[in-house]
């Protein structure tokens, strides 16, 4: 066991802190979110500095580092500004499918553009109204003279409308076949005929990113757009979700840290009843519990990332990290608002958007009971060491 960052990791952290100090601006972030406009210039800079896709292979402009480093980037960016941090680290949503399971051709075609910030991607997995239940999926892909024809609806797809490519989960087998066999993944480009995106409106957070409901009406894609084998979709989906959950846990830890930083600073400054409110035991204990929740959520998140990089990530651990970090972030940001009193509810004091962004991490990629189902499935039949 070892519980410190390596020197290079500390340098990455430092570099990002400096980047944020120089480039992040509170008002700018609030404006982007208000007006639902994406900070493209900021993304370009982050890409130029190699922060985005740091875990991509060098040939695709990545740094060839691990998910651990990617998580470190996400945590640090979100800590400095939860909304900008999420916006910068969620543009490549779904690209993990290409990175981990795509063909060489698919990688060549997309990964570099993604790492450059020129291309957004989206994961179109959840069928309208079905959430994380992928049994007898309604969205189907049928083979017709060498092509695949996709029909169906996907809800609330992050980056829907702005993404250049969509990774779409389709049922290629019969309804009666088990999901382990009847699902397949396809890459669909935004220009594809028959694909329509309808804006899903504003959401709890991440409004500088788009979200849309997608309709696939006889959308044709060549077999070369297939990711993984026919019927292998469920396995790849779960590997993808594991990775997303680890990254989400890091984003949540960053959000919690950012809310905590602001609450701590406020408690030191704010004077009521003749002393700074941090001097009141009840306040001090709130800060103590916030710090403690962050400490263990972070330890678990880092453990999960390390396990991923060492090829030993268990889905249960990913779900534990995600649930623990997201719950922690929500609890910490909640108290950060409370400690700010009336100001906490005001946009300009930031903690309210940390709270909304924290809740986003709790709801995204499956809320509590989805995670508990995953954890239960993985622990129930396992002997733990």
């Amino acid at each position, binding site marked *: 066991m070892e519980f410190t960052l390596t020197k290079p990791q500390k340098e990455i952290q430092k570099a990002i802190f400096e980047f944020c100090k120089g480039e992040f601006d509170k008002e700018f972030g609030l404006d982007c979110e208000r007006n639902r406009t994406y900070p493209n210039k900021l993304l370009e800079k982050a890409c130029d500095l190699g922060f985005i896709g740091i875990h991509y292979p060098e040939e695709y402009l990545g740094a060839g580092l691990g998910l651990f480093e990617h998580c470190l980037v996400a945590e640090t960016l979100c800590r400095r500004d939860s909304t900008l941090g999420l916006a910068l680290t969620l543009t490549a949503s779904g690209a993990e499918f290409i990175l981990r399971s795509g063909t060489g051709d698919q990688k060549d075609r997309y990964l570099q553009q993604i790492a450059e910030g020129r291309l957004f991607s989206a994961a179109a997995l959840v069928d309208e*109204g079905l959430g994380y239940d992928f*049994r007898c999926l309604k969205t189907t892909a049928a083979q017709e003279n060498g092509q695949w024809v996709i029909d169906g609806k996907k809800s609330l797809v992050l980056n829907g409308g702005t993404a250049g490519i969509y990774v779409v989960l389709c049922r290629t087998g019969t309804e009666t076949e088990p999901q382990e066999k009847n699902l397949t993944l396809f890459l669909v480009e935004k220009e594809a005929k028959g694909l329509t995106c309808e804006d899903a409106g504003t959401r709890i957070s991440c409004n500088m990113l788009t*979200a849309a409901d997608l309709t696939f009406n006889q959308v044709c894609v060549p077999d070369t757009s297939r990711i993984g084998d026919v019927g292998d979709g469920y396995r790849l989906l779960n590997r993808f979700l594991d990775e997303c959950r680890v990254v989400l846990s890091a984003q949540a830890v960053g959000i919690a840290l950012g809310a905590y930083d602001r609450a701590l600073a406020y408690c030191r400054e704010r004077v009521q009843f003749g002393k700074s409110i941090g001097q009141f035991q*009840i306040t001090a204990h709130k800060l103590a519990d916030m710090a403690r929740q962050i400490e263990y959520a972070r330890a678990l998140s880092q453990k999960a990332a390390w396990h991923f990089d060492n090829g030993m990530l268990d889905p249960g651990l990913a779900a534990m990290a995600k649930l623990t970090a997201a719950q922690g972030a929500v609890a910490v940001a909640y108290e950060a608002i409370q400690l700010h*009193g*009336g100001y906490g509810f*005001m946009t*300009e004091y930031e903690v309210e958007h940390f709270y*909304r962004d924290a809740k986003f991490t709790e709801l995204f990629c499956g*809320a509590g009971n989805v995670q508990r189902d995953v954890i239960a499935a993985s622990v129930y039949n396992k002997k733990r060491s």
Partner: protein
Amino acid sequence: MEILHYTDAHEEFRLRLRGFCEKEIIPFVDEWEENHIVPKQAWKRMGEEGFLCTAVSEAYGGPGKDFLYSVIVAEELARTNHTGLAAPLHSDIVVPYIESYGSEAIKKRYLPGCVSGDIVTAVAMTEPDAGSDLAAMTTTGVEDGDEVEINGSKTFITNGINADLVVVAAIDPTLENPHQAVSLYLVKDGTPGFERGRRLEKMGFHSQDTAELFFNKCRIPVENRLGEKNMGFVMLMEKLQQERLICAVMAQFAVELIVENVTAYLKTAKDAMGKPLSKYQATNFALVEMATQARIGRTFMEKLVAEHMEGRDVVMETCMAKYWHTDLTQTISNRALDLIGEEAAAERSQILRPWRDLRVLPIFAGTNEIMKMVVGRMLQL
């Protein structure tokens, strides 16, 4: 046994109000949320229909009805899923200061307008540096002759933009002990030196016009003082019970609406095999727990309403309820989002707005930490 006794008259009033909400409020809520304010006209209509200041006595143009009417208004407004048309604040928190402490002339002049909705009121206590610690107030009210000059600024003022009449707490700078130096003054819209700051951007309460107020050499007639000079704190204390009770009442109704909505959603939504989500045991138990908390909260709230109506001193219990019920809104609204999942993250889900709006309940009208301090003192711990 029924703790509260609603008469046919109460029920008739409730149905009339419910119809009004369906016709004249709910269809416009999204627009009001967009505009960050409720049009004055909506207040006027509430007044015309007799839904404002139901407790104000006939002598001043009110119907002089019992507190249950206020409870009904709070409940029906809660069901409109917005907070902008803050009738309970106007009718049950601000106006009572005028009716209890205003001179006969003041009451005759202003109360009829409060009842009719021509006058929207606000109360200005909190200051940038005086939140929980009201004694840190720096807004001054200096009386000379038949005038008072008010200087200072207030913040987080609900109805700050719409308000035609504001109850302002100000301190006499010549006195040592702030607790014996606060007076309450009525400041009318348009009084020279009374200006409104920017409308504050918030996490929720979007349809409500929360604003800063500035008083710069603002001179008002001394007759606009409510009650005795320097007795402001005493008057505030006297009104705390109803103010906190109303918060608990609003919180309780918000909780019930969320439980109702999330239950309906999860009974309707089905998994891929057509099984209602509410039949998943974890979801099922969560809904049971939420329903139980709502029922227990309802019982306690009703008992306090009954005791308040009997004129009993339940200040301590209302402080308990203010913190317990508003905390409950947080656990319930968070749990509702969790049970629905990703779709709840979209504003279109309608379940998101209460989550955003309710976050301020544990903070306003005295933070829940202040409530606990007060209860601790009353329990002589």
